[in-house]
């Protein structure tokens, strides 16, 4: 058949008419487009995945710069920005392998459930006065802490189910570290709650329209940041996955995409804690209305602040080696918890002055 003839045949084919969506679907979208947008784009799926893509890319490039090398270069042509996608694709085609004597169900359940927990916590964070996926009202902050305190349970399960000595040591270290890091987090956040008089994250942000809580709650601000690094297992607190001591800590036995999913947990945790840090201390979505009043500039300011906080957390990785587990616990129990308690005392004693500062 000649090319011309083929074109004629193609032209004669009937043009497919798009099937109209059922009426109830159209109606559903028309009624709930805002919620769908929140779930799918921000602060939902696309935002979390994009954050991981950007954060991992930035970390790789930044570390490479500090290490006098180039880092990812070829994937995606521009500065290797697709490298993470390429890695994820590679991991999906690798064999999934459970070691001998492992508890198979738990072993594979952990990588499935672990990334969802920090993602669920992100749902509670307001990105604008009305742009919040699930406004829990007075339970907002409590629900956040309740969700994130599930993470060490999963790491312990992963470590135990792997049936390996390195993973067990790593899992126990993770549990110790999480308790030592989360106590100061609670207590430091309690200072904010006392000052604001509410657990509602939206109201906490609204109170910071003139002055960020970082100024009146300065001690809590510092304590929260250090404890946040511990809770998200970032350097210098990446003790549970210490490569030089424990191969890869509680993740040692995972292969393929299960390993990939567990790697995302680290960044999802960093995201959730950074967002809470911004909400509590750095004025959340508050900022000059660059993109007009309302949601758009709120999201813009959230993203800018997130970028700065995450960049600082990544920068610390270049500067510091890792603490030993007993040193990290000592830091948590001897310095961070007393500091956070001091913060509560100061807040109780000076609440009227602090509130005057906010106006």
């Amino acid at each position: 058949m000649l090319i011309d003839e083929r074109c004629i045949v193609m032209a004669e084919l009937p043009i497919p008419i798009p099937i109209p969506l059922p009426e109830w679907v159209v109606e559903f979208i028309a009624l709930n487009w805002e919620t769908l947008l929140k779930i799918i784009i921000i602060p939902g799926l696309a935002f979390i995945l994009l954050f991981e893509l950007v954060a991992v890319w930035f970390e790789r490039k930044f570390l490479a710069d500090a290490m006098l090398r180039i880092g990812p270069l070829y994937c995606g042509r521009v500065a290797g920005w697709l490298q993470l996608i390429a890695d994820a694709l590679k991991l999906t085609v690798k064999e999934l392998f459970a070691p001998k004597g492992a508890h198979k169900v738990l072993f594979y359940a952990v990588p499935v459930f672990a990334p969802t927990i920090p993602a669920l916590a992100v749902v509670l964070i307001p990105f604008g006065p009305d742009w919040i996926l699930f406004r829990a009202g007075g339970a907002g902050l409590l629900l956040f802490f309740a969700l994130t305190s599930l993470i060490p349970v999963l790491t312990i399960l992963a470590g135990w189910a792997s049936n390996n000595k390195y993973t067990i040591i790593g899992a126990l270290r993770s549990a110790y570290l999480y308790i030592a890091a989360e106590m100061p987090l609670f207590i430091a956040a309690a200072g904010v709650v006392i000052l604001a008089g509410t657990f509602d994250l939206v109201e906490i942000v609204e109170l910071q329209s003139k002055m960020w809580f970082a100024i009146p709650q300065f001690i809590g601000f510092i304590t929260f940041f250090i404890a946040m690094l511990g809770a998200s297992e970032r350097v210098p607190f990446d003790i549970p996955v210490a490569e030089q001591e424990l191969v890869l800590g509680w993740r040692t036995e995972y292969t393929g995409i299960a390993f990939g999913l567990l790697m995302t947990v680290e960044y999802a945790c960093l995201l959730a804690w950074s967002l809470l840090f911004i909400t509590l201390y750095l004025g959340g979505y508050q900022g000059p209305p660059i993109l007009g009043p309302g949601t758009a500039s709120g999201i813009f300011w959230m993203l800018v602040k997130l970028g700065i906080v995450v960049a600082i957390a990544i920068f610390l990785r270049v500067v510091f080696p890792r603490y030993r587990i007993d040193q990290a616990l000592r830091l948590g129990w001897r310095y961070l918890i007393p500091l956070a308690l001091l913060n509560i005392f100061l807040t109780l004693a000076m609440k009227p002055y602090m509130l005057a500062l906010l106006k």
Partner: protein
Amino acid sequence: MVVSEAKEIMRISWGPQHPMSGQFRFILETDGENVYEIIPDFGFTHRGIEKILEYRTFVQGIVPFERLAMVDAANVGLAYVRAIEDAAGIEVPKRAQYIRTILCEISRINSHLYAIGLAAEAAGGYPAIFLWTTADRELFLDLAEMLTGARWSYAFFIPGGVRADIPEGFKERALKVLSYFEKRLIAYRDSWLENEIWLTRSRGVGRLSAEDAIKLGAAGPSLRGSGVELDMRKEEKYEAYEELNFKVAVQKEGDCQARFMVRFLEMIESTKIIRQALENLPPGPFKKPVPPKLPKGEGFARVETARGEMDVHVILDGSDKPYRVKVCAPSFRNLYVISKLPKLTKILVADVPVVIWSFDPWYLDADR
């Protein structure tokens, strides 16, 4: 003191498939975080080099001998060459002695840079320091290449002298590299050796007292880190070291930080030695003809390599090959000290990489 009578002991195989172990296996007896025993498992890299040397002529033998510690090839090779010269009573020309000293110190800097980079990696501060030291080693590798034609295994020292004279432009380039390197050393001190978290990781960790260091036979920076002033360059006064002015780096504390400070100070001394040797380079021949067959005899050499004292004992039987070569390697002695360390001081699992790399063992010369 740790009592090793805990009931539930967990044995961890630390190596050879471990990110930080190298080509070696340690068996750790732990109960979670406390380490009660570190048992070295020798032999992963045994190559029978002492036996190989019996089938090589003296000049051929230098190449496999340098494989004992490739990162420090010049100092290790010098030990063998000096043992042969001692056995045959060969005098080396003055100029050759100075050239040997220069290459030995370049090699020492290479090795210590690698050790400090590994310390950074062992404590988890991988990103910056390990590749910084690797990048700065490159300059010294290039210097060595300019002098000898090889970056790693030089085989540059031969009985009776060195293979080649100092090339044109070497002195200027070496001085340029040294003045750059002295600036970099300050950067290492500020960003790494005085880093808060590194100090909490290394101060008081793996403490070895001077008596224990002598009793257990520690060698090199491990010994000097415990406050014992013993350096073969001063003791044996070999090559040009007698005529050059340098200090022996000693630290009193005996912990991991002290051992790394010794390496750091030794690098400073090495730069001074290279400068002086280049300034005072005497004229004359750089090698002396040596017959292929050497008379019957017995020779012994002690050389301060980057890892410590290396002793070589050679017996000649009148042919062109040695009858027997016996090496006493510093890494083997230091590995023995590591295995006894949990009895002397408290060591946690997280300390194991820092402690082991603070002794800087090179497993190839321990296994031979």
